[in-house]
């Protein structure tokens, strides 16, 4: 049996536990199961750079979530979780049905697992190292072939950091 299947089932269980656990803190820890499972999956899928980044990001996400729960409360007071009205439920069911159907259509079109057809990356694989001088082709793509994407990423990161600063600052509050 493919080890990825086991990892994915564990991740799904972790996700369900994250959403359905009694208190928020254990839910957040259960989300950690999913995140570190994703790290393992990246390693099995030959993506070591992603695994490294994912470990760091997952740890930081956990810290941020736990800090938020510590500042706010750990209790989930509401028992009523789903809306009472009928219309949102019908809309939800129709939406999920539509999504599943479109997933089946798309999954037919996709290449089978493990048989990816490499078209766009073929020149990168062939000449990437010579053109950029980077032995790691993922780095070559990030910092050379698609450097503008990385600039956009840095912009988003900077904007988000600014947003957090503006939202959480204390000066200028109305007293």
């Amino acid at each position, binding site marked *: 049996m*493919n080890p*990825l*299947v086991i990892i*994915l089932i564990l*991740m799904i269980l972790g*996700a*369900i536990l*994250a*959403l359905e656990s009694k208190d*928020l803190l254990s*839910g957040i820890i259960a*989300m950690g199961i*999913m995140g570190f499972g*994703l790290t393992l*999956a990246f390693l099995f*899928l*030959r*993506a*070591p*750079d*992603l695994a490294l*980044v*994912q470990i760091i*990001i997952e740890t930081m*996400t956990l810290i*941020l*979530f736990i*800090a*938020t729960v510590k*500042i*706010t409360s750990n209790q989930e*007071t*509401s028992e*009523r*979780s789903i809306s009472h009205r009928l219309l949102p439920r019908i809309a939800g069911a129709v939406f*999920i049905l539509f999504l*599943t159907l479109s*997933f089946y259509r798309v*999954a037919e079109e*996709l290449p*089978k*697992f*493990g048989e*990816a057809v490499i078209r766009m990356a073929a020149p990168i694989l*062939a000449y990437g190292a010579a053109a950029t001088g980077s*032995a*790691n*082709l*993922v780095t*070559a*793509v*990030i910092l050379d072939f*698609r450097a503008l994407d990385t600039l956009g*990423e840095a912009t988003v*990161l900077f904007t*988000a*950091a600014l947003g*957090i600063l503006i*939202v*959480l600052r204390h000066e200028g509050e109305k007293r």
Partner: protein
Amino acid sequence: MTLYLLTFILFAVGLYGVWTKRHLIRIILGLVIMETAMNLFLILVGYREDGVAPIITENSSNTAVMVDPIPQALVLTAIVIGLATTALLLAFSVRIYAKYQTLDLNKIRNLRG
């Protein structure tokens, strides 16, 4: 196909969380789950059987089969942006808690006005 289906189930679990939960932290957890599923799906699509990581070493010949580096590079970007958006959402929920003393959307809606 099994792996694609399991990834879709993971995405659906996250969607279910965003749809039914009324607590802000749980909704953010659902968003993180959906994001995880999307990242994993993109990497799954770029995988090749018996492929090696797209890193050129001394003893790897040029004809060695490598996995697709472009999805890996873009998912790397997406992971980092995911952390930024999650942090922003958590900052918003801290502010909402400071104002309303609760993160329950039902109660916040009652408190409006």
